């Protein structure tokens, strides 16, 4: 799979101290999000571990949500994503509340709809980077 990755693919910095637990989780095929201890309020994007004296914890999300919005990318697109065209980018509202940017797999633009039920799928890009992407719950 590594060999197929376009040389210009924009990879995330998975070592960033704030988001590292998220990327570590993705590598283990677990979708981790931040929750405030006590109130159980979810935070996204992640905040630093020292936020308000360490009030946040990483917990595993169910990996289910709904399409909050989507866009279908057409030509001219970036070379790194050319193979995915038409590229269906989604904003998924997790059942836990946060909205995550992702893209769809196993779905055509024609079947996309706001409110569609989706499930996380993990797509390995490199040894270090695995992306959570989304498929319809049929």
């Amino acid at each position, binding site marked *: 799979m590594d060999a197929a990755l376009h040389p210009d693919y*924009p*990879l995330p*910095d998975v070592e960033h101290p704030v988001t590292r637990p998220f990327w570590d989780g993705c590598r283990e095929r677990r979708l981790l999000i931040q929750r405030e201890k006590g109130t159980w309020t979810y935070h*996204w994007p992640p905040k630093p571990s020292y936020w308000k004296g360490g009030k946040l914890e990483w917990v595993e999300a169910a990996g289910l949500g709904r399409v909050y*919005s989507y866009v279908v*990318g*057409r030509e001219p697109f970036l070379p790194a994503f050319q193979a995915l065209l038409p590229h269906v*980018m989604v904003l998924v509202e997790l059942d836990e509340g946060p909205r995550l*940017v992702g*893209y769809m797999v196993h779905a055509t633009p024609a079947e996309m709809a706001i409110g569609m039920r989706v499930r996380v799928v993990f797509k390995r890009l490199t040894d270090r980077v695995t992306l959570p992407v989304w498929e319809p719950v049929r």
Partner: protein
Amino acid sequence: MARNSVDQELFRRIRDRVAIVGIGHLPFAKDIGRPISDTAIEAIQIALDDAGLEAEDVDGMSMFEMEHTHEVTIARGLGVKNLGWWDKLSYGGGASCGTIMHAAAAIVSGLATVVTCHRARNRGSRESRPWAQERVLVTDDKALHVPWGLIRPVDVIGMWAQRHMHRYGTKREHLGNVAIAARKHANRNPYAMMRGRPLDMEIYLKGRMIGDPLSLYDCCLETDGALACIVTSVERAKDLKHKPIYVHSVAQASGPNPVHLANYNTPDLQTTAVPCAEQLWARSELQPRDMDCAQIYDAFTPLVIMGLEDYGFCKRGEGGPFTEGGRLELGGELPVLTSGGGLSEAYVHGFNLIIEGVRQLRGTSYNQVPDCKATLVTGASGVATSAMVLRAD
């Protein structure tokens, strides 16, 4: 409470006591062939000439930049004796009116007397677009959207547009009304990049999809340009060439839980324009109904529709129908983007909207609204933004 009262006092001191006295810009181009560190100087010099001021009068500078031009390079090129105050605002599309707010605050607090505000930007050529250079390792906020391919601004905004269309029934024809109004205005503006390229609904609807639901005509241009204005106190403005155009109210806002660009974790997906508008109108004696026209930031047509709602010209969800019946065109109830805006004049991060606001109030627009006394100018909603109300006697 104490902080709130300080805030009120500062903005009372700014209101109609600070003015834009000079404007200038170079002809827009697809490839201007000069670096922005050079074009910026010329644009500021044109604005100083327009004001009837000399470089030696300048002691402050507020620039809108995401690049790396040094203030001293510009000050030296102009012949400024001494800069006593300067700052640089970032956030593509959002910071235009922010430069004016900072200048106004510096002037009323005595940090500066004559401030140049400018934006110079080269992005006409394909290689110069920041998103086209996105590769290999994403280390900032964008690491949580760029790796999925959400990179082109059209897709970032398309996400908001699709939601708006779904939730409120906004139609492509509504987006088209915005594009057509901007193009009609551009066709009377000799500086507009799209002059001589008429657009009607039939052509609009046939535009090819770029980031569905947004098509070619929903997207702004990509332009090289350099624009400047000169800000000073009304006292200093008295013996200058033009009547002063007053900064009546001005605001900046990041909104809650902000992310640069894919700013999707705000309540109900509200944009940064909501908190910005709240502050802007709270500091203003004028209200949306008092605006004779509006220069609403338009990198993409849905931003104008959402801007009409966020800045209070209509209720949430009614921005689409608000565009109907030529309301946004010259002669309509609320002409918008009377220079052609980013969609059809030039896309220079919205600084041209400030210049056009001043022209309207001077009575020198190419699409002059009769007896124009007040106009709204806004920056990009979505990103950390800014807005202002300009007025004239």
